């Protein structure tokens, strides 16, 4: 039956079927209202799952931590259950391991990404690039075992004594000589660097790869060397992606648990120097879960610590989003 509104319809020509709703068969229009409401709500459900989960986790942590229990003492530096519940040393420990690890992971990740996108021939990067993805898939317990059995002794006998000998004039590097078991900050930072490295490398690599070939050639065409083009064109162009790499890398390092519990020699104190031991929030929660099992006070303290860890991670994430959104980019006509 010809559609009267179709412009191509004429007496001697069959009108083309049109994809507009009015041109379809009449049955398509007769939708039951109930069905359409459900149908329209369905996509909201999976989309709402993450938000619902986050709210549920926060509510449960707030409930189980009995927030008023510890008061301001919770921010103190003395952690001596069941007498003292100050978590400041663990908060400090989490930052003292995650921030240096992030610094190294960003520096090395930038190096790998620049080499792979701008210097090495394509046939080599085709072989080398997948290894970064493979590194991302190594379970953290494997890093922990490897760190404990192999890396820590090496740090204890070779690297830490070397660093102590040559850097002890620096504030934070002098004082107590490092112990020979090697457990402590340096090996913790080393392992965390390796764990954050795949995500920083992958994101920085993608950011640099997104630089249009035209822009590369424009930089080189103005007489910039390859390095100058990387520094003055590619890195600014990819700055959004590079910044996200930093924030996601921090998230990866900040919450790492098992490997840190194994290589840090977790203690509830500030590290004596760069070679000392300390604890992170995540590692302490993991290690004291057993002792806390029959102690409601202790469980509440761990819940509150989890809440603090979550709050810091979320805050860093939100700040990161803000910063990234502030980097102005415009659509380039014709690019």
């Amino acid at each position: 039956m010809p559609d009267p509104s179709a412009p191509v319809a004429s007496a001697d020509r069959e009108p083309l079927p049109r994809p507009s709703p009015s041109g379809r068969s009449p049955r398509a229009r007769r939708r039951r209202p109930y069905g359409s409401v459900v149908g329209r709500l369905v996509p909201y459900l999976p989309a709402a799952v993450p938000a619902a989960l986050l709210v549920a986790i926060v509510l449960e942590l707030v409930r189980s931590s009995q927030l008023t229990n510890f008061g301001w003492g919770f921010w103190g530096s003395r952690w001596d259950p069941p007498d003292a519940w100050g978590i400041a040393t663990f908060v400090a420990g989490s930052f003292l391991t995650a921030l240096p690890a992030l610094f190294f992971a960003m520096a090395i990740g930038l190096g790998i990404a620049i080499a792979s996108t701008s210097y090495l021939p394509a046939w080599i990067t085709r072989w080398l690039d997948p290894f970064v993805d493979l590194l991302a898939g190594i379970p953290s317990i494997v890093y922990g075992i490897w760190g404990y059995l192999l890396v820590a002794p090496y740090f204890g006998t070779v690297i830490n004594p070397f660093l102590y000998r040559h850097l002890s004039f620096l504030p934070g590097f002098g004082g107590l000589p490092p112990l020979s078991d090697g457990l402590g900050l340096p090996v913790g930072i080393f392992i965390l660097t390796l764990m954050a490295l795949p995500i920083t490398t992958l994101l920085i690599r993608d950011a640099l790869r997104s630089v249009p070939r035209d822009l590369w050639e424009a930089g080189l065409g103005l007489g910039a060397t390859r390095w100058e083009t990387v520094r003055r064109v590619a890195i600014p162009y990819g700055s959004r992606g590079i910044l996200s790499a930093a924030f996601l890398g921090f998230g990866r390092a900040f919450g790492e648990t098992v490997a840190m519990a194994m290589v840090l020699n977790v203690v509830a104190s500030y590290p004596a120097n760069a070679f000392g031991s300390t604890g992170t929030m995540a590692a302490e929660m993991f290690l004291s879960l057993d002792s806390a099992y029959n102690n409601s006070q202790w469980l509440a303290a761990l819940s509150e610590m989890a809440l603090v860890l979550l709050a810091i991670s979320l805050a860093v994430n939100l700040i990161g989003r803000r910063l990234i959104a502030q980097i102005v980019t415009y659509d380039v006509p014709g690019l």
Partner: protein
Amino acid sequence: MSGDANGHDVVVSVQHLTVRAPQRTILDDVSLDFAASSLTAVVGPSGCGKTTFVRSLNRMVELTPGLEVDGAVVYLGQDIYDPRVNPVMVRRRIGMVFQRPTVFPTSIFENAAFGLRLIGEEISEIEREVEEALLRAGLWEEVKDDLDRPALSLSGGQQQRLCIARALATQPRVLLLDEPTSALDPAATQRVEATMQRLKEDYVLVLVTHNVAQAARVSDRIAVLHAGHLIEVGPTAEVLERPRNPLTAEFITGRFS
């Protein structure tokens, strides 16, 4: 003027230039001189090698893997393909503007200053030379009050003139333009063409274009490439009105009708 540049003030002399890709020859024994204060349009059908030709004038061609260059491009007496010559230095003297605007994601000022920063100019010098370059590119009046604005907020035509200013800032003698208006609308094209016509007084301009009408409007000499061969070169009016090579005639009429 410069019908053929055999006279005294030759700036760039292309001598027996041949560029080979693994499977085929892109440019075959092309020789052509470029004189000071001239605008030569390089035209020809798609795939004739005109972009490769202009990219071989500042060694940009080397960025495409697998291409092999033979012959010489002599710039003020120096073969730029001499192994002792640094391609980076070549590109600072022989500037290039691309098909699509390629402004960097930074301010207008920093875009224009890009090349000057590379050579480590003093900041007071940079400010003076940026103004000078923007004036020459015909963009100064439009942007002088907000040089700190992101360059990407400019229109496509303004971006392309900024790219021209950026290439001029380091004071090259030669400016290569590879279809600089192919991504622009007619009004923006017209302004870029006006800029080119002003610039040809002071520079050697080499304009690659697929648009014979544009070549007719702005150039004083036309070089026609066909399948990698230079089949005709001469004053614009002469080539367009009385082409000597039948292939040229075919190309021109095909384009004009």
